[in-house]
Structure formats: structure tokens, C-alpha cells
């Protein structure tokens, strides 16, 4: 049984959100993700729902909550695609779990840590999606494009930093 003192990292840095924010922020990210690439096709490389998943997971520092949030966001994303339900659900569920677990070990208030976290998890999601498409769905046309993945991860970092600061304003200490 793990005992939590008042100064434990989990207790010190664990934040909560108003239910409205918990619901509307990921929805807004999914909506923007669906609408913006119509006018600006290059924005399809940025994964706003992934950024939302990472943010809520590291802020709550609860792996179960991170997994559930990531899975729900991923399943919602799957609903807008022609993929079977579960492709993004599995990937973002795992990302949520990993992000919440990493949140225990690192200081998420640091800009560098946030950038590194988003960059690494973007690459990790690319790998997960490749595994799902290639091994679970048997799609041979899905190929790993390392350079493209790195560009996407950098783009996610650039967008994530201001978005994190914006979402920080909505968090409350539990």
C-alpha cells in the first residue's frame, strides 16, 4: 500500500477540471481537427486530440483516468473516420496511460519537459498506429515514415505549448 504524505508529488501536483472543461475541451479539439484541414490541408499533420489526451492525463496524474480519457477521445475520433472503432481508441488509451505515469516522475510545469513529452508521445503514437494498422488490420499500404513522423511531432510540440498554457487556466487543485 503506497502511503501519500502531504508533500508527495502526486498530491502536490494533482489537478482537476470542471466537468464542462473536461467535456468541451477535447470536443473542441476534435471539432477543430475535423474542420481546419478543409481550409488548411497541411494542418492534418497536427493531432489536437492527442495534445488534449496528454494534457488531461499529465494534469490528473491518474493512469486509469488517463486511459479512459484517451480511449474516449480516440473512439470519438474513430467515429469520424472510415476506420473500425478502436484504432485511435487503443492508441490514445495507451498514450493516456503512459502520459499519466510519466507525469509522476517529471515536472510538467517545465516548458522543456512538456515539449519533450509531447514530442516523444507523438512519435510513440505513430508507432502504435503503425502496429495496429499493419498487424491488427493487416493493411500493407500503411508504411512507417520516420521523417514525416518527426515533422508531425515537432508540429504537435509547437501547438501544444500555447494550448497547454491556455488549458492551465481552467485547472483547479483537487
Amino acid at each position: 500500500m503506497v502511503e501519500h504524505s502531504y508533500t508527495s508529488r502526486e498530491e502536490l501536483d494533482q489537478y482537476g477540471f470542471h466537468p464542462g472543461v473536461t467535456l468541451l475541451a477535447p470536443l473542441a479539439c476534435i471539432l477543430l481537427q475535423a474542420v481546419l484541414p478543409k481550409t488548411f490541408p497541411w494542418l492534418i499533420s497536427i493531432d489536437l486530440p492527442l495534445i488534449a489526451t496528454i494534457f488531461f492525463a499529465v494534469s490528473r496524474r491518474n493512469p486509469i483516468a488517463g486511459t479512459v480519457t484517451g480511449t474516449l477521445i480516440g473512439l470519438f475520433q474513430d467515429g469520424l473516420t472510415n476506420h473500425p472503432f478502436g484504432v485511435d481508441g487503443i492508441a490514445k488509451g495507451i498514450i493516456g496511460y503512459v502520459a499519466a505515469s510519466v507525469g509522476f516522475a517529471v515536472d510538467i510545469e517545465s516548458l522543456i519537459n512538456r515539449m519533450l513529452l509531447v514530442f516523444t508521445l507523438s512519435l510513440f503514437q505513430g508507432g502504435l498506429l503503425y502496429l495496429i494498422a499493419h498487424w491488427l488490420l493487416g493493411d500493407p499500404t500503411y508504411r512507417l515514415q520516420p521523417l514525416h513522423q518527426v515533422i508531425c511531432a515537432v508540429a504537435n510540440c509547437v501547438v501544444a505549448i500555447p494550448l497547454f498554457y491556455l488549458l492551465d487556466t481552467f485547472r483547479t487543485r483537487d
Partner: protein
Amino acid sequence: MDSFFTRFKNPMVLIAIVLTQVIALAIQVQRPARDAAGGAREMDATGGGPDGRKVTLLRRWTILGITPVERVVHGSSLKVRGVWDGYIDLRHTHQQNEQLKQDVARLREEQASFAEDAAQGRRLQTLLAFKQQYVTSTVAAQVIGTSGSERSHVLYLDKGSDDGLKPEQPVITPDGVVGKIRDVFPHTAQLLLINDATAGAGVILTSTRVRGILRGSATGQVQINNLTADSRIKPGEQVVTSGGDMVFPRGLPVGVIESIAPDPLHQPYTAIRIKPAANLARLEEVLVITGTSSTLPPTAAQDAADAEAAAQANQRAADLIAEKLPSLHSNASDSTAANGAEKPAEDTESQVGSVSGIPNSGLPRPKPILHPDRFSPGATPPAEDLRPGAAAEPLPAQSQKPQ
């Protein structure tokens, strides 16, 4: 045991959630594979059919939740763009207008010239009892959203089943084929682009008349990868729909061949990359083909008749002008008809100041005078020999004799 679950609660929850979704994936993927097993090869080419009933329900909830907001965002952006385009950004409007007028004039000329060929084609098709499909009705729709995923090339349209849209209906733009309707909802439809991994179409290469199956890929490339290496197939060749998939009518432009390379995944086939004719990344408005017919629609028939009449009128006018204009080389053309090789030499001889090897580069040489009179060149005496009030001198006797 209790402490084990408490200790590994988090990873066990993760495993349970992931495992549930893997099983759900397996159930969903099983259905299309079973359905595709019985179909003919080219008819299955278009792929990307709608989901099973339960999956459709889930997708319907998701789409019905998000598309009203997309519609509002799209409407707002249209209004803003309308104000910008209609009142502010008018810099190139005049130039565009002039360009469009020139294009219209050029297209009218082209239409008249193609009308005769088209009419001949239709007559031949009738003679051969060839089944042709003509587009009789379309529904214009606007793109209101995307899938938001790089791997899923799906768009959402602002028209649905209430507007007469059905799954498997082809979608085009004036440039070419875009895709087909994958799923419909009352006020929205899901458009599967031809560059999606699950999409496809039966196509034909226009020059070589080789048939193939076009498929998309997860990376958004469009390829034909069921053809073996053929030296006749070259980059730049036009690709059109073959009509064999029973979805896309025959003859719609798809794109041009961009590159040909051996396909490492399917040896000994080649991967023929196609550059789509329509810009799939920037689609605003599309046309959904809701009806086809084996006979030409009345409006198109009227247009064809008008164009044919115009072409015939142009031909008659050209014939009349040709009859009225004097022939410059009647003798030469008669003699060269039998011997085509001598024609350029004789043409240049009949002209004054012509450049060798360039036809019609000089002025026509006057023909010999048959009935000379005082107005004939050379018959008038020089000006210094003429006296005011003196009568004109008669022509020499040999010149007056009829020849």
C-alpha cells in the same frame, strides 16, 4: 490476491480496455472480408463499403454530434469569405473576366469541332448496340468537414439522404473523379476519396486501352498495382474510368500517370502512380451523380444537336467561301496529285519572292494573259510617250487574236 489487484490495478485496467477494443476491431474487420469474398474482381474494386449495423449506429451518433457544429462553422466561414471575395478582394476580377470570355469562345469552337465526332461515335455505338451510361442527374454538395485523420481520406458533405443521396453514388468535380458516397445520414453524407486505402475504381488507360484497378493507400497515393510491366505504358498517359466497377460511369477523367516502378509488395506487378485530376486536398464543392441513363439526357441531346448544327453551318460557310475564292494552284494541284513529292517545288515556282521549303511564303505569280486588252499589264505605253488629248493606240495585231 487482493493486494495483487490493488498493486496492478492501473495496468490491468489498461489491458482490459485495450483487449476489449482489439476484440471489437476483430469483429468489425471480419464483416467486410466476408462480404467481399463473393464479388467479382473489378466490381469489388471500389471497396470501402458502409459498416455493419451496430458500427453504423455508433458512427451515426458521432457524426450527428459533430456535423451540426461543422455546418455552423462552414456557414460562418462562407459568409466571411463572401464578403471578402465580393467586396474587398476584387483585384484580379477584370483580368479573370477577360480570361473567362476567351475561354468561353475557345470552348465554343472546340465544342463545334467535337460535335461531329461525338455524333459519329453515338451512331457507331447505336449500330454496335453498345451500352453507354450518361449522367442524367447530379446533386451539388459542399464539403463541410474532414475526418481529421491523416490515414482516413474521408470528407463530410452538407447533403444527405433527404436530398436523394445514397451509398455507392459516384462523386465528381469538373476536373474529374473524386470518390464515392460511403455512408449517408439525413442531412450529411460521408464521401470516401479515391486516395483512401479502402477505395478503388475500375480504370482504363486512354492511349493503350489497358484496363486496371485503381486503389488508394494509407499515405494518400493513388496507384494501379494489378498490371504487369508493359513498355507501352508511359508517364503522362491519361486515365479514365472504365465503367466496369458499376459505380463510376465510363469515361470520367481520373488523372494522369505520374510514375511507373516495380511494386515491391506485389511482384511481378508494377506500381503505377496516378496524379488525380481533381485536387483532393482542397475540395469545396462536388457533384454527386444521382442518376445515369443509357440514352442521352434531353438537355444534353439539345446541346449536341445545337453544336452539330453549328458545326454543319460552319462547314457550309467554309465550302461556299472555298467555291467563291479563285484557285491559285489549280493546274499545279492537278499535276501534283499524282506525284506528291514534287508539290513543294511547284508551289514555290508559282509564287513571287517565296522562300525555299516554306509553303505560301511569297506572293502568287500572275497567270498568263488569255485575252489581253489595254488594261493588261505591259499593254500601256510608258508615261513619257503619252500626249494629252491623244487617242489610245490600238494593240498589236498578234495580241488581239483570240487564243
